[in-house]
């Protein structure tokens, strides 16, 4: 499980809808990767001015390819780093570190599992689905995105799931609305035992709340800004309630990215809650509301 740093080789880069999927020969990374973990890659070449490695969830791994173990990740072109990645060619070297972070926990007994993915957030749910199916679990997929081309993996999801629900914000395919909209009904009709989710923070907040209301355990994989990705810098923290009931600012790169949904204090992301361990002594007045917490609130209201 300990991460390694390797100079991998780009094996292939293909388009999937609005996304790119890159397969990298990365011996040592592939062999120990578990669903929910991520890799980081250096972008921009040896003399790059972009110092921050880019994190991506692991999509598929092949432990023994012709060239050694391979790792595939799916990415959306967002800024300079991902634009550079999208222009890489097969056989070019790529500096990759992984597997990183805590994976999804799997149920011990066969269970009914609802997997909820938003945008490229569906990608890590596929290796998870494989692992769950190996354990005899039933899979029900709910995937959503802004538009049809930003849906990821609908066909594959259909093939491996008992039921598939699809949503798009613009109604171009499936239900018009948010991925959390059909969730209460899916949970009820499938008699779900557990929910797994990956996607943008407002979605994870909504999914966690719905699962909590239904009394179903929920694991989510979050996405926070990261500088090191390995646990040394404290950039990627968010307020999470521990087993002892105390809130701590924990590192999503090593203590996450997978958390129990009900433990994450979504409303307080972007703040230091006054009752967090080590919070500033005189509680700030008035209670600060971070940009992201405010945004999450708006989205959640729109979802309801």
């Amino acid at each position, binding site marked *: 499980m300990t*991460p390694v740093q390797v100079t991998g080789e780009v094996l292939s880069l293909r388009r999937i809808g609005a996304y790119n999927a890159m397969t990298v020969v990365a011996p040592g990374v592939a062999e120990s990767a578990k669903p929910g973990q991520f890799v980081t890659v250096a972008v921009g070449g040896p003399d790059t001015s972009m110092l921050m490695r880019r994190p991506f969830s692991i999509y598929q791994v092949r432990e023994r390819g012709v060239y050694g173990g391979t790792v595939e990740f799916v990415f959306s072109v967002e800024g300079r780093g991902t634009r550079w990645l999208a222009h890489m060619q097969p056989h070019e070297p790529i500096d990759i570190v992984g597997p990183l972070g805590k994976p999804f926990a799997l149920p011990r007994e066969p269970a009914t599992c609802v997997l909820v993915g938003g945008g490229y957030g569906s990608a890590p749910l596929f290796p998870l689905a494989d692992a769950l199916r190996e354990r005899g679990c039933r899979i029900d997929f709910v995937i959503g995105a802004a538009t049809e081309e930003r849906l990821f993996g609908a066909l594959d999801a259909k093939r491996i799931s008992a039921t598939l629900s699809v949503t798009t914000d613009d109604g171009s395919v499936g239900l018009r609305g948010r991925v959390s909209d059909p969730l209460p009904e899916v949970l009820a009709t499938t008699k779900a035992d557990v929910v797994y989710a990956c996607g943008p923070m407002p979605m994870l907040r909504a999914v966690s709340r719905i699962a909590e209301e239904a009394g179903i355990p929920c694991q989510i994989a979050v996405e926070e800004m990261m500088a090191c990705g390995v646990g*040394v*810098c404290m*950039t990627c*923290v968010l307020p999470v309630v521990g087993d002892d009931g105390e809130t701590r600012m924990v590192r999503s790169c090593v203590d996450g990215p997978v958390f129990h949904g009900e433990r994450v204090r979504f409303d307080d992301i972007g703040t230091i809650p006054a009752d967090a361990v080590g919070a500033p002594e005189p509680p700030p007045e008035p209670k600060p509301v971070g940009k992201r917490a405010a945004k999450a609130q708006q989205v959640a209201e729109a979802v309801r």
Partner: protein
Amino acid sequence: MSTTLTVRVGTPAATPASTVDMSTTLGRFELPNPVLTASGCAGAGRELNQFFDVAQIGGVVTKSIMLRPRSGRPTARMAETPSGMLNSIGLQGPGIDVFLEKDLPWLVEQGARAVVSIAGGSVEEFGKLATRIRDAGGASMIEVNISCPNVEDRGQVFACDPRAAANVVQAVRRATRAEVPVFAKLSPDVTDIVAIARSCVDAGADGLSMTNTLLGIVIDTDTMRPVLAGVTGGLSGPAIRPVALRCVWQVHQAMPEVPILGMGGIRTGLDALQFALAGASAVSVGTETFHDPSAPMRVLRELTKALADRGFERFSDAVGLAHQPR
């Protein structure tokens, strides 16, 4: 050394890399080689030990520790900038109790040399921290972070006031065993770095760490607000290298006998060599570790080779060399 420098350009290594003596000293602290981690960029060494053996580098400079646990600043805490980054972590950490119980003993167990960085909000707090560390044992050196521009209270930046800086240094020096050097870590955000450096040395600092980050701001042009929740952050990485190097140069020129731990944007062995030539007896590799988690080890390898290629037999012969006339 000047004789060995007469090798022709293009001649292969005049000295085999394996025979270059890389040992160095920071005051009474003897190091097998001059490459260390930078405070806040290596935790307490455990995570980086997955990528290289932390006992093999000169030392591990730990994240600045405070008396009590501290949750730091709200997120967003980071913004990437051209050849650098802005951070506003706000000294999140477990506090000295946990550090002394879990982190420092682990480093000692690995055979790593621990440079313990401390931060406080008052002279008294710095003194207490030093006392706790003395009582626990295990630290090879103390680095006093008087310059972190991230602490909540802007008024608590000691590094910009020669008197305040001296008071902190004096309190720490008094509470620390004689064989453990105390280095003051300076901020480049001052008008006269030599004045602050002199004040720290007069107060008992055995050496100086230079430099900490420079204060900066990035504004998101979509939200039209600062990217960092804490508004300002510390700029680090290659973007600040010439500034940090200038600080090392000026202080070494003014006080050539005072050892310097140099840092600021070191990515390669040649960057480290620049700091040595300017007067640094050792270097810290910070932000580059985020880009390449094995960077400190790589920089050591590259520096050793760079010295060999230039005909050096000893790292120490390179320290301050750039100040000598050609």
